[in-house]
């Protein structure tokens, strides 16, 4: 376990925090869970960085998929699941296309998100997206600016979705309710207030 020292100054304590890798900090089962859910041999990653090099998110954020792969192999479960960067993957699959070891880093990330969600660690915007889908059938519902743009392009103001056919909304809600997704999102959001 990381050595803790009692500094009076909290800022100094954070700055001098012990960042070493300690075996007891790791969970050797974690990589197995990731591989089982993600269906990819994540332990075969040889850290070449093709993934981060391909990643459209990396240049604009602190998201480093290679680091997540590395931490997963090392079993740093806590560090991964509590890292907000885990949610910065756009799931474009460029890394999966190019990985020379034929791994699917995207699916490993999705698996780790899955594991985080089991512990109710999900960013609020993702949960709000669940609520929006429940309400309107869209993660990003139509708005006035979009309606104006559509009109200008000669399209109907509402797209051929639940916006135009709200009678299909109950079906979508039934699916979401089946997995208890909406109740879960409501609960986590309420607790976080």
């Amino acid at each position: 376990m990381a050595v803790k020292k009692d500094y009076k100054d909290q800022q100094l304590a954070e700055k001098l925090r012990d960042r070493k890798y300690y075996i007891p900090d790791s969970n050797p089962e974690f990589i197995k869970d990731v591989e089982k859910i993600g269906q990819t041999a994540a332990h075969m990653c040889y850290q070449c960085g093709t993934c981060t090099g391909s990643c459209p998110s990396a240049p604009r954020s602190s998201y480093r998929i290679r680091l997540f792969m590395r931490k997963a192999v090392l079993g740093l479960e806590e560090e991964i699941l509590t890292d907000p960067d885990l949610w910065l993957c756009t799931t474009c699959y460029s890394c999966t296309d190019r990985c020379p070891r034929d791994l699917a880093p995207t699916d490993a990330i999705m698996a780790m998100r899955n594991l985080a969600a089991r512990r109710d660690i999900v960013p609020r915007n993702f949960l709000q997206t669940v609520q929006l889908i429940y309400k309107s059938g869209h993660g990003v519902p139509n708005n006035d600016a979009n309606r104006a743009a559509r009109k200008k392009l000669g399209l109907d103001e509402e797209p051929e979705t639940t916006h135009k056919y709200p009678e299909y909304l109950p079906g979508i809600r039934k699916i979401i309710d089946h997995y208890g997704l909406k109740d879960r999102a409501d609960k986590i959001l309420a607790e976080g207030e």
Partner: protein
Amino acid sequence: MAEVKKNEEPRIGVFVCHCGTNIAGSIDVKAVMEYARTLPNVAIADDYQYMCSTPGQNKIAEAIAEQKLTGVVVAACSPRLHEPTFRNATKAGGLNPFRFEMANIREQNSWVHMHQPEEATAKAKDAVRIAVAKASLLEDLVPKSVPVEKAAMVVGGGVGGMQAALDLANAGIKTYLVEKSPTIGGRMSQLDKTFPTLDCSQCILTPKMVDVYRNEGIELLTYTEVEQVEGYIGNFDVTLRKKARGVITPAEAEARGIVGGGCTGCGDCVDVCPVIKPNPFELGMAPRKAIYIYHPQVSPLIYTVDFDACVKCGLCVEACGEKKAVDLEMKDELMTVKVGTVVLATGYDIFPIEKKFEWGYKNYDNVITSLEFERLICASGPTGGHLVRPSDGETPKKIAFVLCAGSRDSTGVGKPYCSRFCCMYSLKHAHQIIEKIPGAIPYIFYMDIRSFGKMYEEFYYRIQDEGAKFIRGRVANILEDPVTKNLHVNAEDTLLGRPIDMEVDMVVLAAAVQPTAETEKTRRLFGVSCSQDGWLLEAHPKLNPCGTTTAGVYLAGVCQGPKDIPDTVAQAEGAASAASIPIHRGEVELEPYFAQCMEEKCAGCGLCVNQCPYGALSLVEKDGRTVMQVTEAKCKGCGTCGGFCPGGAIWMQHFATPQIVAQIDAFLLGGEQ
């Protein structure tokens, strides 16, 4: 046919090996030994720490004498490892060595069932019981000796093939060196410099080429391919296709009665030839005519007509004049030579790296391969040694080198193996641009730098000191600026933990290597196996790296797997040495696993004759009947005829039907009769 001593009572000795803990770690050796004692025909059973050791072997010899054994079973490792050892021990005990049978309880048992000791022990008992059943029916066999032709063949005239041919010829063996191109020299003659010494590649190669050409023991056959192979170690009959070259040598001219004629390499024909084609030696970056040589230092210096391109205008014939060297009506010729042993040195090709779309080769002008770099930086190359950007002819200042391009790639598009010499030549390339282009910076994108050879790590140190920039990260993709034709290299600097987008003037891909297209054809002709990735398979990766599983055929150079020049030359010398041994001994022993005709059963139908893949069978008249006869030296004991014979008249020595049936019975009946 060997005598079957029908009345002999079998007495078998069983010896179970511990192999330290290799076997005893998961198999209860004592239990297997005790079990063996209960088996029919077993006179003695024993166990020992290492049966292959001298005391272990002595146990066998002593037991044969004391117990008057008729057969020996050793339950140990694979017969590929120690069958010869225990055969010798059996022979030392006074028994025919073919009365020995091996039960593999290591590779096929203890090593694969490491965590199932009970099941492994039960399986070992099965293996011993099966071996005892066969050993009870084994008979005396005598290996056959055949004379070895005092000549050898080397296929492939690169640096490996040349070295093997020189060594064989200098050892007093007539050697045929067969090369498909019009000249010897191979890949090495395309290189500019060699690492880590920075010797000029051609300067150290051409003396060898001249040696090969001048050596009286070498018959150099360029522009020639192997067409057909028959025979076996000691007696290969190889049919060669001498492709129509369209030009005759002075010796051939003399044979045709043209005094003072034949090609002198003057090149007058080239000046008049109207057909222009890309020169494959320069990877298509320079032109050649329909009548051509690859480069000025070719050996032999004889021009070649590309009949696919030639329009037969006859201008070259006129230009050649009285020498009458050009013959546009020339046809391919077949010739057959007899050799005792063969060395394959068929080399490699560059992996078509355009298959990895993300690096844009053949899509972006300024992305080139390392071999193209070699030609562009070489003083005798298409640009006279001035490295230029293909897009605009400008000198590049920032050059990215992409290592592991197509190597270490398990996607199925690239190659799973390390191509082994790319790290080192890319370091050399970095040195060359620093030396030749003032202010140029090489950026080397790498995963690992594998500088494993003698003075290689020191070379790496030197290049880093000279100013090469190293970025630890594999290149994810390359994009081209459509206006400037500059390239954006995207990767992660994994040491920094940050993605980078680097704009460079040129990218050099250190493309993977793969076996040549002809390798597959050649290996089938000679009956040599290949590994999953197409490289020719050595007999043993550590203990027999030059031999193959086909007796009399040896390997040299990259055809066996990626190698740099020192390793290629070393293996070539090893292969030449191995190939010379049967020739110097004068005769080889063949394992006596021949088919035998039981003449009283043979109906003379001749169906087996057509089935035999080795042409070893024929029909003969004997005592007024037609019966099949086996040419033992040609028979490989494959068993095709034995399994096929409708009358059951073919006896496969050492794998006879009663012996195999006894093994099956022993397995299925679990020892019950």
